């Protein structure tokens, strides 16, 4: 596989082409606007391409750790169900190993060795998000201020990541 330039650099190069070479040649105002929007999407995608697997895996670990902390304190059926869903593994052999690991641990383990294919990481992250949401609901219903505050910190971290992606976002076309 050709690793240099990396994906984010390739996308960045396409963005330059769009803005410096193609945009000046457009006369239709609607098409210009659509091109500027497309370039923004590509620039955001470049940031994501460079980091998103690492970001999702790191946050997955934090989300599941929180869910387990809540589960240890409060009995919540939705939370049990969400945690039992566990991480996703694309490869059957890996899935088997992970399943054995889960059985041993009693519930889903954050950051377990698994597929690094983007779709699998995103699926795992989504399930961790569901477990977190169920845990947050349980903590809120129990009035556990310390856990709700911890959840708020995790959400703030999540939003900080989203802001890194949208760092250069500007509203156009309004």
């Amino acid at each position, binding site marked *: 596989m050709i690793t240099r330039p990396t994906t984010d650099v390739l996308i960045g190069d396409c963005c330059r082409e769009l803005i410096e070479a193609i945009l000046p040649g457009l006369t239709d105002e609607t098409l210009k606007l659509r091109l500027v929007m497309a370039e923004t999407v590509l620039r955001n995608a470049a940031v994501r391409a460079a980091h998103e697997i690492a970001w999702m895996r790191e946050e997955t670990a934090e989300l599941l750790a929180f869910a387990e902390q809540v589960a240890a304190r409060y009995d919540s059926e939705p939370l049990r169900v969400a945690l039992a869903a566990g991480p996703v593994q694309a490869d059957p052999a890996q899935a088997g190993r992970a399943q054995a690991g889960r059985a041993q641990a009693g519930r889903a383990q954050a950051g377990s060795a698994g597929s690094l294919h983007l779709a699998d990481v995103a699926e795992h992250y*989504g399930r961790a998000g569901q477990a977190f949401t169920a845990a947050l609901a349980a903590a*809120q219903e129990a009035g556990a201020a310390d856990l709700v505050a911890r959840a708020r910190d995790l959400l703030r971290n999540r939003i900080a990541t*989203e802001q890194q992606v949208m760092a250069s976002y500007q*509203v156009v*076309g309004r």
Partner: protein
Amino acid sequence: MHTLGPRFEQFLAVVEPDRGGQVVACEAITGGYSRISARARVRWRGGEEETFILRGDPPPGSGVFVSDRDAEWELLAALPAATSVATPAARWYDKSGQYLGSKAIVMDCATAVSLQDEMARAGDAGPLADLFVDTFAAVHGTPLGALPARVPHPPDWPGYLDEVLDRYDRMGREYPSSAPVLRYVSSWARAHRPPPTPLALVHGDCQPSNVLVSAAGPPLVIDWEFAHIGDPREDLGYYTQIPLQPNVYWADPERFLARYRAATRLTEEQVNPQVVDYFLIIGMAALLEQLLAAAAAIGSAERPGILAPYLINAISHQHDMFLAICDRLS
């Protein structure tokens, strides 16, 4: 767009068969995220000319924001009798899209400029800010009984607020990427309800760009597609996140809200910066749901167009604003 002029001419032949309307110019209007708009100049048989705005639905599956054109037409038709707020005259409606390619409303094109542009040019935007506040206070003073039956009338204020917060819960279930933030925010919002106000006509896209001004007449309020009956403070909260400069709320929140209270007779307990902050969450619910639906459709057969991925950043921005509001008001 090049075919719209001839199609509009055919439409005019149906709705104004005796006037011999000829479309002499037709151009797209860029800007705005929801409808497809065009400006068309028409010369009638007698030689007089009029300019119209054509406002239609984008092709199915190609937009982000969805609204009901039939409902908008009914509302536009009812507003002149229902409210003291002026709107451009709504002239005709291609209800089926048979002539104009999609359901489209034809309105008079006002000889006026955007209040937002006027504010940007003004050395002192204060008087224009007052005009903006007074205009939307008048919108909020519209008697609800005069609105079309199609506009949903919530039973009461607590029930309405519950509806909006339930909507956030539903969004969390349907769009899991946003569920953690929405769960946190909706739970917080249930626990921090502000004092109620009477329900009112809410414009739904309250910003100076949707007010046209001229020396010749009263301000004209446009873009009613998201109008509904709700809490009038939704419009105030919504305006606080409008990024176009100047934002006359942020220029002087106390002046803005004092003017609004004076115009509406609402109390300081009902209308203050904290309450306005709260109603940003309430006022954004419908649009956030549409943004999430559009983001979910990316990559599907019904590709919603470039606006959907572009506005994913707006979802992130709302997450950030919502959490910040919870922090500020807790």
